[in-house]
Structure formats: C-alpha cells, structure tokens
C-alpha cells in the first residue's frame, strides 16, 4: 500500500465534436493496489482508459507517471512507460498457441530465427509467477482454451513486459462463476506482486472482492475516489446512478445538471 500513486491524472477533458465525454477527471492508481473504475454505460470509463493507453489524445489535463509529468500520444509511448491494457475482446489469435500469442508482434529473436526456447521459458515463468495452474501446455492453441483460460493468457501477456500498470476492461464479463473466481484471484495477485491495477467492472461483487480503491465516474465526471474499506455497496450504486451518496460525490445543488465541480474527488474520507 504505497502512499504515492504510480499514475496520477488531473483535470482531463475530452470531447468528441460537440459532446464532452470527460470533464475535469482526476484518477490515481497506486502500486500494489487494485483501483476499480466504476460507472454506468456511457459514463466515460472506456474513453478514459483509451486516453491513458494513448489511443485518444486528451483536450486538456496532465499525466503524472512515477512522479514525472509525461505526455502519452500513442499506444507505443504508453507501452514504453509500462502501461498495458487487456481489452474486453482480449485480442488473442485463435489459430496461434499460447506462447505465440503472448509474444505476438514482439517476438524474441536469436540471429534471424525466432528464439522459441527463451520465449517458452519466459511465458512459463510468467504463468508460474501468477500461480496459474489451469493451463496444461504452452503449445496449446488458444481456440482450445476456455473463456477463463483465455482471460488468463491475455492477462499474462500484459504482465510479461515488465509492465507497471495493467488496465483490465471487464475481465469477468461472460465468464461462469468458477472461472470468474479464478480471474478475480489472478487480478488480486497482479497487485500483490507490486503492479498498479485498474479494474473496470459493472459487477459490484468483483469490485468489492478485489479492489483497494473505488473510483466512480458519473456522466464524464469523477465523482469520488474512495478506499474500499470506507464505502458500502449501496453507496457505490448511488454514486454510479445519481452521482452522489450522502457526503460523497457531486454537491447536492449541482448534481442534477452536472455542471458542478466534483466534491471530494481525490481524498478518501467518508464524512
């Protein structure tokens, strides 16, 4: 539980034409912690992630990574900082095996040929480091894996590159109960291994099961970022649906039209 965030966003604005999608958004992600990013459909979660990963340029605001101000203009720069994103559709190739998928586009070479032994060893070490025991062979085609195993491979791919911040977009959507449990344990283990993790989820159980902090987006505004020990299920649901809950979130008089400044957006206390 580190006191200084690995990634800190301040005052992020983003518009698509006349539609302002993100409004003065602040977000902090801490090493060793899972920060859950919650919000209703259209609240701006995916847009925010795409800004962090360099897919969308932001209109205003600053990024501080590891204490230094940085600008992230494209996905390569994000990867260079150690930011990896696991998207909902996983972006795995069915016709390739696990090792090939994990190194896709970033293959290790020895001379002019691919260095298969090294890649296989690195993949095995990464999976072992995450205590993954469900995968039988690293040379299995991804098409033969279950949904939970695919998610595991996608996550392992993201941590293979000495990444420091991993963003997971709805990793348990479309999984059964047993597989959801395994993926949640894996997400927790990533953070326990020292990474900063941002988890996007609609499922309150998943959020409460693994997160250390909860950041709630409401109509493009970050209405609260609080520690998971300081909030209840009902309060989070209120923040998502109404933008405020008791002393948390938007101030009462401005909440409805969404013009007010977000109250208590960075500190963790519940009044």
């Amino acid at each position, binding site marked *: 539980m580190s006191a200084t965030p690995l990634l800190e966003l301040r005052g992020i604005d983003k518009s698509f034409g006349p539609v302002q999608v993100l409004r003065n958004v602040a977000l902090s992600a801490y090493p060793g912690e899972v920060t859950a990013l919650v919000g209703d459909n259209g609240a701006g979660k995916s847009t925010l992630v795409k800004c962090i990963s360099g897919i969308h340029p932001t209109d205003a605001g600053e990024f501080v990574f590891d204490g230094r101000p940085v600008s992230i203009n494209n996905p390569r720069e994000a990867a260079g900082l150690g930011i990896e994103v696991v998207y909902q559709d996983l972006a795995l190739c069915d016709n390739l095996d696990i090792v090939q998928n994990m190194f896709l586009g970033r293959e290790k070479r020895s001379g002019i040929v691919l260095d298969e032994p090294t890649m296989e060893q690195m993949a095995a070490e990464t999976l072992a480091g995450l205590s993954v025991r469900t995968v039988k062979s690293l040379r299995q085609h991804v098409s033969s894996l279950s949904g939970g195993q695919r998610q595991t491979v996608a996550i392992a791919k993201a941590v293979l590159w000495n990444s420091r911040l991993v963003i997971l977009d709805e990793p348990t959507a479309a999984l059964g109960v*047993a597989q959801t449990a395994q993926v949640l344990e894996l997400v927790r283990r990533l953070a326990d291994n020292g990474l900063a993790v941002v988890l996007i989820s609609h499922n309150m*159980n998943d*959020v409460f*099961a693994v997160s250390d902090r909860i950041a709630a987006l409401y109509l493009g505004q970050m209405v609260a970022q609080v520690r998971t020990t300081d909030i*209840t299920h009902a309060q989070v649901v209120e923040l998502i649906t109404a933008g405020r809950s008791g002393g948390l979130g938007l101030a009462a008089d401005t909440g409805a039209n969404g013009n007010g400044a977000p109250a208590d957006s960075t500190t963790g206390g519940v009044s």
Partner: protein
Amino acid sequence: MRVGPSQDEIRRQNLGALLRHVHVHGATTRAELTNTLGLNRSTIGALTADLAAAGLVTEGAPKETGRAGRPSLVVRPESERIFAYAYSIEVDRLRAARVGLGGAVLDRRELDRPRGLTAAEAAPLLAGAVKEMRNALPEGAVCVGAGVAVCGMVRRDDGLVRLGPTTGWVDEPIGTALGAELGVDVPVTVGNVADVAAFAEHARGVAAGCDNVIYLYGDVGVGAGIIAGGRRLTGHGGYSGEVGHMVVARDGVRCECGNRGCWETEIGEHALLRAAGRSDARGREAMLAVFDAAGRGDARAQTAVRQAGDWLGFGLANLVNIFNPEMVIFGGTMRDLYLAAAAQVRSRLNSNGLPACLEHVRLRTPKLGEDAALIGAAELAFERLLADPLDVG
C-alpha cells in the same frame, strides 16, 4: 546453573535455521544465506556440509548469473528424497499425500468419505492409500513423519480429536489409529484443518510475511486458524479458533453443537442450501451449484448467497475488531462464498468494523488452494525435523 546455550545447542539452532530457510524459500545461494541468517561464510559452509552429509540438502552450481566473479554455490532442499506423509480428513473426503521437504506435493490419493465414518474406520482407508504410495517410492526416500489435518477440535498434547461436530467424532484417537495402521515408527502429529491451513499459507502462501492472520475455513461448519504476532494461537488445550460457534443470533437456528444461533448456522452448508430451497442436497458440490445458479440469475439462489454473505461480513467484523488482523484468508467453501458475495461481505464489514481495525485489513483467497491442508499437515511433521535436523534425517 545455566550460563548460556551450549555449543551443541547453538549448532542445532543454526542447522535448523538454515534448513528452515531452504525449506520455506527453496534453493538459495550460500551468499544469500550468509546475509539472511547473519552467520559468517565459513559457518554457513560447515552447516551446509553437515546437512548435505545427512542427505537433507544438496549443493550445486547456480545457473549462469551473467556477473563477474566466482558464483556462489546454491543450496537446495532434497525435495524428492526427504518427505512426510500428510492426511486430510474432511467432511466428504479423505486425502493422503506425500509432501517433499520444500513443500511440494509429490504424490496424492483421494477417497470419498461417507458422512459418519469413524476414526477407526477411516484409518485403514488412509493406510491403504499410503501403502499404494509406498510401493511407488523412489529409491532412498526417507519419511520423517506424518501429519493429519482434521475437521474437529484437536487436543494439543496428544492429538486426540475431542469433538468434530461436522464429522460426528467424539474423542477419536485418529493419530494413534493411523500410527498403528501404518506400522512404522514415525510420529503422527494431528492438527485442526483451519489451523494447519493457516500455518501453510503463513509459511509459503498468500500470508507470507504477515504476522497477524485469520484463516477462515468453511465446509459444513466454519473454523478459523489464527496467527497472532507471528505465532499460532492454539489456546490452552489446542481448541481455539472455533469461530463457527460464535453465537450471532439469540434465538437462531439450532446448531449441530446443541446451541442456537451459532455463526455457522447462518453461513455454513446447511444455511445456504436451506435458504436456496435445496434442503435435500448435501456437500460441497451442492454448495457450488448454488453459487453457480446465483451467477446465472436464479433469484432464490441469489438471495441465499447475499444473505449468507451479509452474515459472513457480520461475524468477520467481530473477528476483525477482536484480533485486528492484517489479512483474512477465505478457504474451503468460504472462498466461494466470499467471491460470490463480496459486495455484501465488505459492506457489512465496513459498516460494523471499527475504522482503526479496518484500516489495514486485506481480504484474500488462499494461494495454495485446497492443498493448504495437506501442505500444512506436512509442515506439522517437518517441524520436528527442523527443530533438530541431524537427529531425524
């Protein structure tokens, strides 16, 4: 009059410390051992030589380090050769395993256990599994002891199972029965399943490095293995940690122990199955089926899971307030209940727990999974070896 520990005692202590380090952390270079144990290089060399002569460790060249200078030798535990038998007596099954020094499960057998099977009847079944494993032993393998994890209250002095409400055992001498069946002169140590699982997770699992831990184990009933200040909390007779019988409702449901309103009557197997309208069903599979049904949208199952999750948070808040742990681990069916109802568990914990006690508590699931009971049982057996390596090996 004693003036201080003798040379022999210091040596035994150091041998134990070195062996414990490679047992818990795996292969370690001599240089690292010198640093972590705070002994000088020649002492480490001599201790390693003694342990190697006794066949407990091997020394070998490390993999390429890529650094200049003569590489330090790596000390490895003899995981394949030195082993302990581990048994786990659970409500619905019996497990036996061979666990090597270093904590790896080398071989295992699993049997169904009809509910109501007594210790005298269980011992031959487990002994049969051990005989099978013994036939497959590699040459030169040495057994240093046996450990048993059992769902029940275990007397610390002699391993007598005093009361296993969920197994139906009263005063069952399982340790003696197993010792007699095995017919070997290795001592059998008995421990409660939650206690030994806590021990294993603390030594080499998710709680490594944490000194205040509660391991909550659930099946039909619920028990806790508690580590306070880095030590296992056993209580005077060894019976502590029966948190499932903490009374949470004054006129609650009758519990198998005879009282009313015990915590496990709200979060255990019977409670969940009853609330889900499946009172006829039994066992772990039936419980998992309820979680699965809840995940698929069965309204009654969802209500049952949420209610049980709320009760789990309720009792958990009490435990967190009393023990101020830095980590709570959910094992057995509590893992599945926690992951399926975390929103309710945490919400209740957050509202009932004292803010100061909640500040640093981490809720986790086991890293060793179901193997924790077996590995922990083996740890009980290894304790003797680690206390005096040259005497046992």
